[in-house]
């Protein structure tokens, strides 16, 4: 069950949501991202997975909802599609809270990073739709539709340049190559530098405006790695006392790819919104989508525009 389906399932069952909120501390982890981690998070991940393997008598490393104590003892696992209040009550079994020594939070910097110090975070919301002209095609659907969320990181020096009325080329590069992707279809590849055939995005008097065109080889084109994309962007930057107070953008693009030998066109739109205080919500702690799913080591330095990192 994918994230969209699971969110939809929870949305249809407010009693289940309340039960989770009242009786558990919840976490959500990406298996590919956590498996290689050599830090307290990675160690705890392996501890409760091993505990479940021992419980069922065979090696187990699959998707599911795991109920554990803070020492890593796994009480049970519930499939996402089966999750109900009763199933969770049964999974809790004879749960008793334990006291255990928990290490301080520290991250394996080879597989995880947080928002660069002094940087800005933009919340990204995106949907795709059939090619057309009416913006209403992108309206949210009751089942969540194709909505995806993402976080875009802006480095401190880039934020300072923006506040001074300059548009850093590294930020434009990051926006185009790493965030104009479709996370809904899985783990999309980012765009390489030589895929950017045209970009003309400028910041003038607080208005960010422009267009872009991206292309990759047809041979490597798939639904998640579409062959081409072109679009336009409009954004607004406002500063107060030398600090960015508004950084909002909308991008709309037309994409084409080949599926079953047929050329398909569709549209995608994104909104980018400045998060005033990223420390206040869990979602802001997530890395940008293209860095997750085990691809961190390969993409992080390129993402931040720091080849030496």
């Amino acid at each position, binding site marked *: 069950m994918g994230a969209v389906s699971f969110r939809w399932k929870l949305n249809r069952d407010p009693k289940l949501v309340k039960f989770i909120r009242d009786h558990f501390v919840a976490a959500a982890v990406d298996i590919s991202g956590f498996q290689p981690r050599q830090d307290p998070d990675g160690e705890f991940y392996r501890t409760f997975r091993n505990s479940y393997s021992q419980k069922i008598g065979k090696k187990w490393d699959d998707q599911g909802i795991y109920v554990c104590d803070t020492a890593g003892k796994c009480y049970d696992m519930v499939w996402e599609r089966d999750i109900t209040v009763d199933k969770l009550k049964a999974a809790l079994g004879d749960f008793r809270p334990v006291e255990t020594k928990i290490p301080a939070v520290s991250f394996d910097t080879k597989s995880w990073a947080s928002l660069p110090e002094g940087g800005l975070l933009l919340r990204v*919301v995106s949907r795709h739709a059939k090619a057309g002209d009416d913006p209403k095609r992108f309206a949210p659907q009751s089942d969540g539709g194709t909505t995806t969320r993402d976080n875009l990181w802006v480095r401190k020096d880039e934020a300072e340049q923006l506040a001074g009325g300059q548009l850093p080329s590294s930020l434009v590069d990051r926006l185009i190559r790493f965030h104009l992707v479709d996370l809904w279809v899985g783990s999309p590849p980012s765009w390489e530098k030589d895929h950017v055939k045209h970009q003309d995005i400028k910041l003038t008097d607080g208005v960010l405006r422009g267009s872009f065109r991206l292309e990759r080889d047809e041979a490597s084109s798939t639904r998640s790695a579409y062959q081409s994309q072109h679009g336009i962007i*409009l954004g607004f930057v406002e500063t107060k006392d030398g600090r960015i107070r508004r950084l909002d953008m909308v991008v709309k693009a037309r994409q084409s790819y080949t599926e079953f030998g047929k050329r398909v066109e569709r549209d995608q739109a994104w909104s980018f919104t400045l998060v005033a205080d990223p420390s206040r919500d869990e979602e802001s702690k997530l890395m940008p989508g293209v860095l*997750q799913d085990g691809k961190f080591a390969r993409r992080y330095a390129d993402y931040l525009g720091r080849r030496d990192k």
Partner: protein
Amino acid sequence: MKYRRLAALAVLAAAWTGPNRADEPKPNKPAQERGTAMSTGEFEQFWKILQLPNEPWATVAWHSSLTEARTKAQKEKKPLLIRCSYGTLHGVC
């Protein structure tokens, strides 16, 4: 009469080739070549549509750090509920 027949043939020919033309992919000119730019009105329309609705699942604080979740669970004497999947709950499928 002859001209009427010719006109009728021309109409038939246009009708015959019409669907074929419609099936062909339309020229996919990049935005900058079409000379289009997003208007402020369009920005506002998209902006409104692309805001996140208040969804019940998001009222649960889904921790991305297991260590932080453990610390909170120990303090509140609660069990942990950990969703493990390929992709994140917030975005990637």
